[in-house]
């Protein structure tokens, strides 16, 4: 018979709960990466369509992708980050999600 974890080492349960809570609250970043083929105005259009950003904000992000190789375009809950990356891949942008270090 296997004893429930909390009866053997109650402390582990608490630690796991803290870890689970951290996983839920730690924001995920959505990052768009540069590639030499996608057009600049196409990337701007996609950022406007996917996130609803106004053109100036989308253009600023597009230029950051172009000049610095990547741009953090959104930050928030993991499930929503996955949804956005899915959409960006649907438009053939190179996009990833990563856990925020903040």
């Amino acid at each position: 018979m296997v004893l429930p974890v909390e009866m053997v080492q109650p402390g582990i349960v608490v630690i796991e709960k803290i870890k689970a809570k951290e996983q839920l609250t730690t924001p995920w970043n959505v990052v768009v990466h540069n590639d030499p083929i996608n057009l600049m105005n196409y990337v701007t259009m996609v950022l406007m369509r996917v996130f609803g950003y106004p053109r100036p904000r989308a253009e600023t992000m597009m230029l950051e992708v172009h000049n610095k190789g990547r741009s953090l375009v959104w930050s928030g809950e993991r499930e929503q980050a996955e949804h956005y990356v899915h959409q960006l891949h649907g438009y053939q942008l190179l996009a990833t999600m990563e856990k925020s270090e903040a």
Partner: protein
Amino acid sequence: MTELRVQPIDEKHIRISGIPPVLAAMLRELPEILELRELPNAHARLFPNPTADHDKVNDEWQQMVTPELRHLFVSAGETVTRDLTALSSDKANPEGYQVTFPIEHVNAWMSAINQARLILAEVHKIDENEMDRTDFDPQSPKHMASLRIHLLGYLLHLFVDLDKGGEPENPV
């Protein structure tokens, strides 16, 4: 001199007119190019992992999301392939070609054109330096692939300009 245009002709249809013969030939090649999407390099570019270092998340993504994206991309290619059967001589300019299709196919056209550009780039290993090329040797498959990417890019650019009317009503 033909002027390439992408414009609505009524509330339900878009027309690409003034298509030069070289671009018409490239459009006819689109279905063939899109069939290369499962070559390893092209596949990796069109269906990238969502994270840099979370193997479990990446594996789940490739199992769950990639088939959905593949369906989306294949469907866009099929729509454009069907529309291209209407590609014909431009009545207003006999040296050019034109094609008319339903306005709801615009996203499929943008997807198919961009897929083709990305696939050509991967198949011919075209990088940023190659994209800056201005002289094209007709005997070089790589140079001709670069030229195709640029010409298809110009057409895509016109589609994006067409989209400018659809800016968000409630910007973030």
